[in-house]
């Protein structure tokens, strides 16, 4: 017991696999935990392929990090590697996408050291593990928020501070206890934390739940990532139940009802299939119909139960998001049923088990991507050569233009006067007026399309040209003069400080800081039908991307290096601005809105006609359905 009372040092163990998106934030939050006791941060780099390794090395140069190589055998094995390397008596195990809040470590270590007596006067069991509380970040995507609320709701059902299960990734363990029960079971893809909790309990230890130790989980965004993760949970859960048969009723975090759901759905789906087959085989219709109706009734009951849970959660958190529980959890249960079916099938066919790992590559190359690694290498060598020959300016202003002869000269003049330091590239999208002649005489870089093929293509060509020329940042402004070059400086700030991959100029964003208030004078919110459409579109995009979208059709933007690499190949086409928001969110780029003041176009008419607007609206609706379901695109590492 004496060892428990002087828990002096703390070792953080963070397994990392393709975690470049969040790891900086995660590690910064951990560093801020320091409360005077000895601290070490052990990062287990488990065969990342997204540039995390480089990022970690870069961070380790300035921070006290210990980087250990993992064997690429999954999360449980990676954590074990970290635990073995740890020096101190307390192991704080934090996942790569968990951002701990202030006081997290102090609270959990306090819980581990707590050897008080319970109300009957007998000493309580020594505490081997303590778990923190995930709070919901309201700025993330709908799916991530719903998942987080669901977990908070389940945590809410835990009574007092004793718990039967400590979730990994947000927990502190006693190193001696972990070694005593033989570390994490590496055969699990998911569920190794439940397994550890059960074994610690069996060894006579207590587990604590600390609501004050708060952290934010950056859940996977998008429905596809969610389903893949749920499939993994389902598979891990069966492995878990096979190893601990008495735990079929769940534990304090995963209640019996949650375990029951996929089973009921499996029965209902089997019933529906049987009814269909029986109906085709020609048994009396009433038999097949009864079976079908019973199955549908079961599914209906599940939905009603989830809706009730959603309403309770929505009232508790004051947010309508949990109302999607019925739909989301029907998907979740389907993923679990799939996992159960796969597990059973492999068992029957005597194939080795195939758990889904949380630390598998999280992103893949889009099928049909026209870009091979080889071509990328050639392009990069080319860019390096160009760079070596003439160090290019860092920032390029890209102006897509179609029949803008009337405005282009004044736009370029203004731009030059405001930003003499940036280079300019005009992409002429098959203009039929004087634009090509004009551009040739204006001493700017230019690309010309022989036919009009659209702004998306103009962007792709311009970005590819910029990437090959070695530009790091691209600013897009329109050729009609509605964007003011003076705003560029403010838009560049978040990209240059590394806070954002993409900055979008919004004509209708709230001017939060007083300094910008003067700029708001010129911006008037559009009224009437157009204004309504824009607001509805903005609301839909906000819900789908999890970020506030105030100006879904703005073309004024600044793109950082990651965005340039992604969009040079995959910029959406058609009427691309709203779809671009969805696409960036799907591929996990950081997007920031900055308020700007727009003017009406200088001269000439807009190319928008009622017919084109209707076509664009249809495309955007389709994009809302399809883009979140597409696979995430792997962004190739830069030079």
């Amino acid at each position, binding site marked *: 017991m004496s060892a428990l009372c002087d828990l002096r040092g703390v070792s953080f163990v963070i397994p990392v696999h393709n975690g470049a998106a969040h790891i900086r934030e995660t590690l910064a939050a951990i560093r801020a935990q320091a409360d005077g006791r000895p601290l070490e941060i052990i990062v287990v780099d488990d065969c990342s392929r997204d540039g995390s390794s480089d990022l970690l090395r870069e961070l380790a140069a300035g921070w006290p990090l210990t980087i250990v190589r993992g064997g690429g055998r999954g999360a449980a094995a990676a954590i074990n590697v970290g635990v073995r390397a740890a020096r101190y008596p307390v192991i704080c195990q934090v996942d790569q996408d968990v951002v701990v809040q202030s006081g997290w470590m102090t609270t959990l270590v306090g819980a581990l050291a707590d050897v008080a007596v319970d109300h009957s006067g007998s000493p309580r069991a020594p505490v081997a593990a303590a778990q923190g509380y995930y709070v919901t970040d309201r700025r993330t995507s709908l799916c991530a928020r719903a998942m987080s609320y669901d977990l908070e709701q389940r945590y809410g059902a835990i009574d007092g501070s004793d718990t039967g299960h400590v979730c990994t990734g947000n927990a502190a363990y006693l190193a001696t206890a972990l070694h005593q029960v033989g570390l994490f079971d590496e055969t699990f893809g998911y569920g190794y934390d439940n397994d550890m909790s059960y074994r610690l309990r069996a060894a006579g230890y207590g587990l604590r739940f600390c609501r004050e130790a708060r952290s934010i989980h950056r859940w996977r965004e998008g429905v596809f990532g969610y389903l893949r993760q749920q499939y993994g949970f389902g598979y891990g859960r069966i492995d878990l139940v096979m190893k601990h048969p008495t735990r079929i009723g769940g534990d304090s975090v995963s209640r019996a009802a949650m375990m029951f759901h996929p089973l009921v759905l499996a029965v209902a789906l089997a019933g529906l299939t049987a009814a269909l087959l029986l109906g085709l085989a020609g048994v009396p219709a009433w038999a097949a119909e009864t079976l079908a109706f019973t199955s549908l009734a079961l599914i209906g009951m599940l939905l009603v139960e989830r809706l009730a849970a959603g309403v309770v959660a929505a009232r508790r958190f004051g947010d309508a998001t949990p109302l999607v529980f019925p739909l989301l959890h029907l998907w979740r249960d389907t993923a679990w049923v799939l996992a159960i079916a796969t597990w059973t099938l492999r068992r029957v066919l005597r194939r080795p088990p195939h758990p889904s790992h949380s630390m598998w590559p999280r992103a893949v190359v889009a099928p049909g991507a026209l870009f091979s690694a080889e071509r990328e290498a050639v392009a990069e060598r080319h860019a390096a050569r160009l760079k070596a020959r003439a160090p290019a300016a860092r920032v390029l202003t890209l102006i897509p233009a179609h029949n803008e002869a009337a405005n282009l000269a004044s736009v370029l003049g203004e731009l030059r006067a405001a930003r003499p330091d940036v280079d300019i590239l005009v992409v002429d999208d098959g203009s039929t007026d004087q634009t090509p002649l004009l551009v040739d005489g204006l001493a700017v870089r230019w690309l010309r399309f*022989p*036919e009009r093929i659209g702004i998306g293509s103009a962007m792709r060509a311009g970005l590819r040209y910029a990437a090959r020329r070695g530009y790091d940042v691209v600013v897009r402004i329109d050729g009609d003069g509605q964007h003011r070059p003076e705003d560029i400086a403010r838009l560049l700030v978040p990209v240059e400080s590394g806070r954002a991959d993409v900055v979008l100029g919004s004509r209708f964003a709230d001017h939060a800081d007083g300094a910008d208030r003067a700029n708001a004078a010129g911006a008037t919110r559009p009224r009437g039908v157009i204004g309504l459409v824009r607001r509805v579109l903005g609301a839909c995009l906000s819900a789908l991307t999890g970020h506030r979208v105030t100006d879904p059709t703005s073309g004024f933007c600044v793109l950082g290096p990651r965005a340039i690499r992604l969009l040079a190949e995959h910029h959406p086409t058609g009427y691309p601005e709203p779809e671009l928001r969805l696409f960036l969110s799907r591929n996990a780029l950081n997007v920031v809105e900055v308020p700007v003041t727009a003017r009406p176009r200088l001269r000439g008419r807009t190319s928008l006609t009622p017919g084109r607007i209707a076509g664009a609206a249809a495309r955007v609706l389709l994009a809302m359905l399809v883009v979140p379901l597409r696979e995430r695109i792997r962004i190739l590492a830069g030079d």
Partner: protein
Amino acid sequence: MPAINRIQIVALTVSVVLLLIVLELVRRRKITEEYSFIWILSSLLLLAVSIRREILHAAARWLGISYPPILLVMILIVIVFAASLGFSIIVSRQRQQIERLIEETSILSAELRDLRDEVDRRDAPKEPRRTA
């Protein structure tokens, strides 16, 4: 049953002629092989149905269609649907290829222009020249 025989002969002729036309178009390279298969398969299907009308009758009975020729119309509609869906895919792919080609040619011509300017500058260093 002369009427039935006559329609059978007409159907047979039409499907054989269709098959021959498709094969001839492939031979003359007016249709590339990959796009010809759907037409060859459908004319073979038509041929089979016109040789053995029992196939049509049996299929209609199984589906519960009382008037077998309707089944023929249904099959044709399905074939036309499949074909036009296939063409939509092909057209979309070609649109993407054309977009990419135009993008690449525009970049190439810009790079060529840059190179020419550079060469000109190197050849005639004294003569001041507008830089691109």
